[in-house]
């Protein structure tokens, strides 16, 4: 019995051990034989396939896959790569992409957030409406409110102190950016309004500052 082709099962499907000593043409014949033998056992199973023991070029890999599908009823869903280095690179780039997407992307919410309503967002968020007292926005990024902010905002909830909050009318009960929390003054009259003015809240030296939105402030933003 030749041992140039060995099939093993694993979590996702099968692993095919290939001998790297014999020439490829010979190996192909062995593969034909092996899969013909075991086609009854596998039936029409759909599975992922991994090649081990021999480095296959893209061309060779395709040939092997063709042989498998010709000589058995296995449906190969995908070929799992066992190359550690390549896996690392993929993993890294995917994680980076996800992080970037969460950071630079924003969502829109249209409508007034009312008492008792909570909006949680895994990105920055733009609210087209008011945030009333008792309502809360939680975002991993920035929060921009095209309306009055009278409720609670948590920006950069994952600890990102470079996040900011902008509102056309800034009257928050509580505001939190990264790990810094600020609350509104106690003695403020609750229904006497100051003139509405667009303001921005940001963190500097572990303090939250609220300032009128001006070009100078905008150019100082780093995010």
């Amino acid at each position, binding site marked *: 019995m030749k041992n140039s082709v060995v099939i093993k099962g694993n979590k996702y499907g099968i692993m095919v051990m290939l001998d790297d000593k014999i020439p490829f043409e010979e190996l192909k014949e062995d593969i034909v034989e092996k899969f013909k033998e075991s086609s009854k056992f596998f039936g029409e199973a759909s599975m992922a396939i991994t090649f081990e023991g021999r480095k296959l070029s893209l061309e060779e890999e395709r040939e092997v896959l063709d042989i498998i599908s010709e000589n058995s009823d296995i449906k190969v869903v995908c070929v799992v790569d066992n190359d550690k280095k390549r896996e690392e690179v993929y993993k890294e780039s995917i994680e980076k992409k996800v992080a970037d997407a969460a950071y630079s992307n924003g969502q829109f919410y249209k409508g007034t957030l*009312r*008492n*008792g309503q909570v909006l949680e967002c895994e990105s920055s968020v733009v609210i087209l409406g008011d945030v009333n*007292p*008792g309502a809360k926005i939680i975002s991993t990024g920035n929060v921009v409110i095209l309306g009055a902010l009278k409720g609670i905002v948590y920006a950069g909830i994952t600890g990102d102190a470079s996040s900011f909050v902008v509102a056309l009318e800034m009257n928050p009960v509580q505001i939190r950016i990264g790990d810094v929390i600020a609350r509104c003054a106690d003695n403020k009259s609750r229904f006497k*309004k100051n003139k509405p003015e667009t303001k921005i809240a940001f963190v500097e030296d572990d303090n939250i500052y609220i300032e009128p939105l001006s070009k100078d402030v905008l150019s100082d933003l780093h995010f």
Partner: protein
Amino acid sequence: MSEVIVVTSGKGGVGKTTTTANVGTGLAKLNKKVVLIDTDIGLRNLDLVLGLENRIVYNLVDVVEGNCRAKQAMIKDKRYSNLYLLPSAQTRDKSSVTPEQMLALIEELREEFDYIILDCPAGIEQGFQNAIVGADRALLVTTPEVSAIRDADRIIGLLEACETKKRCDLIVNRIRMDMVKKGEMMTIDDVQDILAIDLIGAVPDDENIVISTNQGEPLVGSDSLAGQAYMNICKRIIGEDVPLLDLSGKKGVFSKISGIFKKN
């Protein structure tokens, strides 16, 4: 085409029941066929405000449980023959009725009445859910106080989240113009600014309301400011365009002239 209106507020004691009684009576005065349903099971008041307590035989729970027919439980008002009251039960609690049962009852009553007005209990629990489930529109009653407005805001949020979108109009109750002028009370604009829904009427704080409530005689349509304000609300409900009442109460020439300018 009949309309189902729920009178709600979230907070207690802002005037839901008084508003229900007056709006219902006012619509009856305008020759509409009206039924008022008290959904505040266990804490019934609407019958008192209408002065119909002594006529109660069956109640809302009897109807949904099938102990009697809806016709038997409905009490005809002593002043208007086209106004009916379906009282709530006093010895049961809110869980005695399910939203499905309310819906079925309302569908049955729709056949016969122009307006079905539901007096909602305070809170946002089962009683509230029962009251709003079949409603086409809501009258949101609030007073110009931060606590009442905060609760009203929550109610609007809950009504907006309903599957069936309901039109929601605001009634600002118990306004005291003298305090507003001194800056000690929120103005109607301040309230509207926060709640951001259409205003259908503002009712002044009026001692006549207390008297009428205690006597069981709704004052809608009377000469008092509150009576006029409620009548205006009724007219707006049936689709008439009525200008907002001048609540300052002064009958001076100057205020009359300025009132004319405001209307334009």
